[in-house]
């Protein structure tokens, strides 16, 4: 039964009329009243004397939260939890944090403002407001403008409110009633019918999804050429008999082109004795050797092979390549060291091809000769 008064409503015909009405109601001392229009009307907040909206503070608080959270998160990750050098920047590269901080600030401020507006200021979800489903609401949401004085206001009396609205120019006034029980009605989420319906819906949707994605998509003609009469690499196959995989093991003792195995593993003396540099010291060879040396060798050995370089101090320093010992080594010995590594120097076989190793050796020889030039070099120069 609808028996409690919610408020008194008045319908107005024009936007100017509703603005005037709002001013009159506000001036007469009503605090709890609201205006309903189908579209925003300029000047209404001022006419209703609403004061500044508190929404800005939501943006401020959430924005500041985002700014600090974003900056501190990145600082913690990049500087403390997992310090990483990225493109030579320090562990605390704060300029790089600013775009992310900015984005998180904007994200939190906008999302926080919208959610704060909906759930704090609009008090949603509100599914049983007394004004819902009234003739008044139907009119003001199409072509009329309405004002509603709530009964909770201290000054409220039904007759006086109606008189006020008529004197303000209302074309129609009415009273809204509501029922406490209806208003406080809370739906029961454990209702059996509701839950059975929910379960059936879930089963139907997930079942249909499963059938669509796992069965229907793989039946002819929708299989998108997934199944073809060919053997993929690294899948089990009985095609080659005793071998259970599609790939075949090469016969014993074969080598791929350009990947001849190194003959003198662990035998530097043999390598020195048997290997000679097959390349002549031409300008082209030396230039390739210099490029490769500068990339792979110079970080430790230095540009002039003196044994101190930019990684100085981070690894054990290699000895100078200008020593008597190294100069008297055969080319094969150096080739062996580049191939197998020595002490803390690793193998450079994956970085340098056989040819390139020889070219690097030519360049190292040129460096050595530059530091210990002979008499005839000077004469040749002339």
């Amino acid at each position, binding site marked *: 039964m609808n028996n409690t008064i919610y408020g008194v409503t008045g319908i107005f015909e024009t936007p100017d009329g509703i603005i005037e009405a709002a001013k009159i109601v506000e001036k007469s001392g009503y605090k709890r009243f609201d205006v309903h229009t189908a579209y925003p009307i300029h000047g209404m907040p001022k006419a209703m004397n609403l004061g*500044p909206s508190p929404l*800005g503070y939501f943006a401020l608080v959430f924005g500041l939260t985002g700014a600090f959270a974003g900056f501190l998160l990145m600082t913690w990750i990049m500087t403390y939890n997992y310090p990483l050098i990225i493109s030579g920047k320090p562990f605390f590269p704060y*300029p790089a944090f600013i775009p992310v901080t900015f984005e998180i600030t904007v994200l939190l401020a906008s999302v926080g403002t919208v959610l704060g507006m909906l759930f704090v200021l609009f008090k949603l979800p509100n599914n049983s407001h007394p004004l819902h489903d009234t003739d008044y609401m139907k009119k003001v949401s199409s072509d009329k403008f309405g004002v509603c004085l709530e009964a909770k206001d201290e000054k409220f009396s039904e007759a006086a409110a109606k008189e006020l609205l008529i004197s303000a120019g209302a074309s129609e006034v009415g009273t809204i009633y509501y029922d406490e029980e209806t208003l406080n009605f809370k739906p029961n989420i454990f209702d059996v019918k509701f839950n059975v319906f929910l379960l059936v819906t879930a089963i139907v949707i997930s079942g249909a999804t499963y059938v669509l994605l796992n069965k229907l998509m793989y039946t002819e003609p929708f299989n998108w050429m997934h199944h073809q009469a060919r053997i993929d690499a690294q899948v089990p196959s009985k095609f080659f008999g005793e071998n259970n995989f599609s790939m075949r093991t090469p016969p014993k003792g074969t080598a791929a082109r350009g990947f001849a195995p190194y003959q003198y593993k662990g035998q530097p003396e043999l390598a020195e004795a048997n290997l000679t540099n097959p390349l002549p010291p031409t300008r082209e060879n030396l230039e390739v050797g210099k490029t490769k040396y500068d990339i792979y060798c110079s970080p430790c050995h230095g540009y002039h092979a003196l044994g101190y370089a930019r990684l100085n101090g981070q690894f054990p320093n290699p000895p100078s390549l200008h020593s008597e010992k190294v100069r008297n080594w055969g080319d094969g010995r150096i080739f062996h060291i580049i191939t197998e590594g020595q002490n803390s120097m690793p193998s450079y076989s994956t970085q340098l091809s056989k040819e390139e190793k020889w070219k690097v050796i030519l360049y190292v020889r040129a460096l050595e000769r530059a530091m210990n030039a002979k008499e005839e070099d000077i004469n040749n120069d002339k």
Partner: protein
Amino acid sequence: MINNWKNDYVAKPLPTKALLTGFVILALGLLMMALAFAIDHQRAAFNGIITMMFLLSVALGSLFIIALEYLVSADWSVPFRRVAEILSVVIFAVPIFAIPLFFNMHDLFHWTHLEDVLNDPILKSKMAYLNEEFFSIRTIVTFLILFLFWYLLAGRSFKQDYAPKANFIKITTKFAAIFMPIFAITLTVMAVDWMMSLEPHWFSTIFGVYYFAGSFTTALAVITLIVILLNENNYMGKMINRDHYYNFGGLLFAFTNFWAYIAFSQFLLIWYANIPEETSWFLHRSEGSWMFVSILMVVVHFVVPYILLLSQPSKSDPKRLKVAAIWLILVHFYDLYWLIMPTYGKHGAPFSWMEFYPLVVSVGVVMVVFLLFARNKNLLPIGDPKLPKGLHFHL
């Protein structure tokens, strides 16, 4: 109701006292300038670029605001267009301050030293653009184009007050559309020629936009300040309300952020890529006391105006808006100082009375030009059919 502005607005002559004050400030500024040129002509010339670029900011920014209003057919800004139109007359004063600089080219621009240029492969490759003849032609042509567009966009508007033409807005909108790309090019050319080429090895493709961000904010701040001052003394009728001010405040706030966005973009890209020919410019600005100037820039040009203009009431309150506008005008000087002076004082920020003459001269020029030109003129474009709508603007 919509036409009652005619009762509110009565054209009043601006006070002669203000004009006299303007003349006194300008005379003082010119005296300082002359003295500075007599004592240290190189340093005075560098400060001369600051003067010139500031006045150009005000003039070009005003023209841009006028053109923008026509292009987007804004209503709210129509009452203030006349202020922008009068302010844009400053464009005719800018070349005067370029003349002494042409006599000091060798002190300003490294690329004018031909023997150095020929020994420098980078500068040699830029010779086709950076040479004194082409430089002078560019500056002169730029000013001639700007004079023409001043007439087309602003000059024609004054006649509208007494003999309105029906198709005036339509035609001017077309001129405004033509002006937009020309504005972008002329502003970039002036910024690149007079400021970026001070360090001819360095380049930044965002430099023109950076100067634009500062220029627009400055012109808008000057217009805001003038409108508030005029309104306080009832020169623009009674119709200007807080919603008009709110738009000024909102735009100033937006372009404070835009400036910060552009300035930071320029810094971040150069900092990230870390290429020697690009980082040199920022390294010059972090040597000695320049580091302090650079860090303070973030505070004075972004943090302070951001806080000043953040809240809703501060955007619509003329008193607070006035403070923000004056602040934004002053920080544009600071910005130009930071852009230009490191080429002069390589190891530390030079600072003495000489660095104040651009401020005094510019304030004097803007005051004198505005007050002289505004005499016997309406401060509202009373012939504009959109004026009533603009005056009745409400958010």
